[in-house]
């Protein structure tokens, strides 16, 4: 497999910023030209890619009245104001939405990482009847498109009287089969001798899992928990239908369904878009490497 991401010991070199082609010393004139052209092309496209976000940011810092006049007015206006952000925070809904998004994302990430790593531990380190069947189920589960199950999931949550609670967003997202798969691959790479040594020393299976395997798996734990957090934060489909109380809505659902009544307040709308993204931008800046590696790893396997 081309997996380079979350496997113990093998670390993708791109993370460190070393490019293979940058084999110093052997770059001729054509190499230099190529470098320059590459950089120019990349910079141009990077700017194109940044424009929508920067335009949204600029708009959110513009007065609603100016923003209503259109792009030209927004781009040529130089009186930044935090009014749109302030009005969001004063209106209060945003706090409840942040709360709902934060609570559901954190709890789902905790439960997913905990339960999936336990299951992966059993599949990777324990020998028992039914193990192969269980693993086959996991592999099959990867193929199940959970989005397509939105209607029956709604019905089941309704039977359990869980609609309009945070649990209705949390529970259906806990069985992330891909997480078990990623953990298992990682655990498979941990040499058996270490575990056996611990067992001989008298550690039971739980202790092996908790005190040996998990501490060794920090990179993959971090990657899976961050990715789960991001996935739950960004989910629209599930919370859109299972949460109808405006006080309990997650940020994307709140922004999508609750409208402000006074016409098109573009600056406010863009401020909302940025507020929904802000925690993730911060998360990215802190955990850049885990996120990129995790996304790559899950993409290659899932």
């Amino acid at each position: 497999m081309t997996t380079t991401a979350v496997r113990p010991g093998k670390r993708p070199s791109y993370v460190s910023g070393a490019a293979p082609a940058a084999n110093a010393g052997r770059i001729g004139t054509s190499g230099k030209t190529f470098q320059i052209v590459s950089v120019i092309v990349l910079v141009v496209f990077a700017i194109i890619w940044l424009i929508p976000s920067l335009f949204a940011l600029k708009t959110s810092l513009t007065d609603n009245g100016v923003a209503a006049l259109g792009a030209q007015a927004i781009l040529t206006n130089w009186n930044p104001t935090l009014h749109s952000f302030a009005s969001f925070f004063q209106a209060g809904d945003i706090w409840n939405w942040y709360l709902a998004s934060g609570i559901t994302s954190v709890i789902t990430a905790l439960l997913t990482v905990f339960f999936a790593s336990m299951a992966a531990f059993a599949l990777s380190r324990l020998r028992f009847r039914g193990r192969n069947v269980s693993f086959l189920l996991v592999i099959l589960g990867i193929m199940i498109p959970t989005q397509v199950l939105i209607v029956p999931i709604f019905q089941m949550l309704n039977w359990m009287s869980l609609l309009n609670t945070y649990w209705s967003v949390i529970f259906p997202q806990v069985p992330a089969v891909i997480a078990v798969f990623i953990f298992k691959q990682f655990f498979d790479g941990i040499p058996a001798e270490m575990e056996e040594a611990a067992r001989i020393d008298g550690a039971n299976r739980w202790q092996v899992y908790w005190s040996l395997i998990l501490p060794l798996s920090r990179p993959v734990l971090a990657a899976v928990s961050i990715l789960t957090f991001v996935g739950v934060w960004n989910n629209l489909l599930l919370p859109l239908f299972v949460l109808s109380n405006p006080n309990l809505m997650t940020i994307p659902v709140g922004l999508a369904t609750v409208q402000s009544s006074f016409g098109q307040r573009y600056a406010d709308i863009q401020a909302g878009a940025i507020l929904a993204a802000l925690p993730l931008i911060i998360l990215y800046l802190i955990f850049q490497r885990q996120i990129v590696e995790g996304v790559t790893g899950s993409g290659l396997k899932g």
Partner: protein
Amino acid sequence: MAQASGLSRRGFLAAGLAGLAIPALAGCAGPVAAGLAGSQLNPKTLVYWNLFGGGDGGRMQTMEAGYRKTHGGASSLQATTFTWGNPYYSKVTLSTVGHKPPDVAVAHLTRAKPLWEGGILDPITDEDLASVGLSADDFSEAPWKAQKTNGHNIAIPLDTHPLVMFYNVDVIKKAGLLGSDGTIVPLNSMDEFEAALAAVSKVTKGPAITSANVAGETATPWRVFTTLYNQHADATPFLSDNGAKLTVNWDVFEDVVSRIQSWVKKGWLNSGLDYGTAQSYMFTGKAGMYLEGEWELTTAQLVKGLKFDMAPLPTLYDKPAAQADSHTFILPKKDRSPEQRKQAMEFIKSMLDQSMTWAQGGHVPAYLPVANSDDYKKLKPQAHYASAADHAVYDDPAWYGGSGSTFEGIVGAELGLVQQRAATPAQARESITSQLKIYLNTPSPL
């Protein structure tokens, strides 16, 4: 390498716990308890949902403020405005199915019917009405009769919003159609109306009248068609048996639809215009008249320098009729204490009392103490078209029908094509029949 990877297991757990602790510290215990334990948020607060954007949204906020002022301040009411259309009705249904509905919600009258069929609504009893001093006599006949279902009151109408004719006073004057009272002369037959169209067309050197029919606009063609269709003495309901039978009188259908198409052929009616452009034609004098619901009053009033007025669509066939719907208040099904019922009714009463604010936006009040008041009768141009509401024709009840519904989408799209001359009336009939077949043959899920 493992240590280098940022998150330690303990740190991870701590971060998680901190994430849980922050809300508690912030004192946001309300939603958290509701979200985790399913408890009710604030039993004292009345939860009210609506779908009003634009000018209606602004006026509704004024009315909500009016309620808060007289009923215990900011915490007495939690009002939420959702995005208009199907998603809104989905939210009402799903929240009720999930046992967490709002106390009061707004619904179009034609959409309240399928909600009632689905068991989503609590009936409103005469005692409920009496508890806040209301009775059936307080409401206009058309909407009150229309909401009554199997002997139950299912919704309390706030207004009626019929299809009306907007006209540009300058253009109409040039065409010699302005009466001595400053309003358009009565056009009481098809011949008079068509003569007027010809006259206006001469002034505009283009269409005389516009009606939106492209870019996804299916509701307007339906509104125009069904208005004219129901002016026919031989008109039968388009759908019967809650949508199980297609009972439209096809002869009348072809008569009306061919007539509309003939106007396009003569250049009197636009062939294809989207919603915004259709009204801008009338606003700018490129056309004399414009057909749409009276709610476009707010938009027209914002156009600088425009002199416009409004009138019911003239009776071109045998009897007056105007396609309409009503905004109503519904009580989604939930366990309510007598106090909560009373509270909900008081809110509705407060909204009705403020009908005058609501009427500014063009809607014809259904609450007679306001509709019959001198203040309302003095309101212009409202007074010029309010009679259209007396002849309101509501969409036939069907589980897939009502304002903005699948039914309107299917039929309206075909009617739009006829107006574009992309389909003949016979082709439209065939296509409507075949597309409705799945719905006609499907037992109502309600």
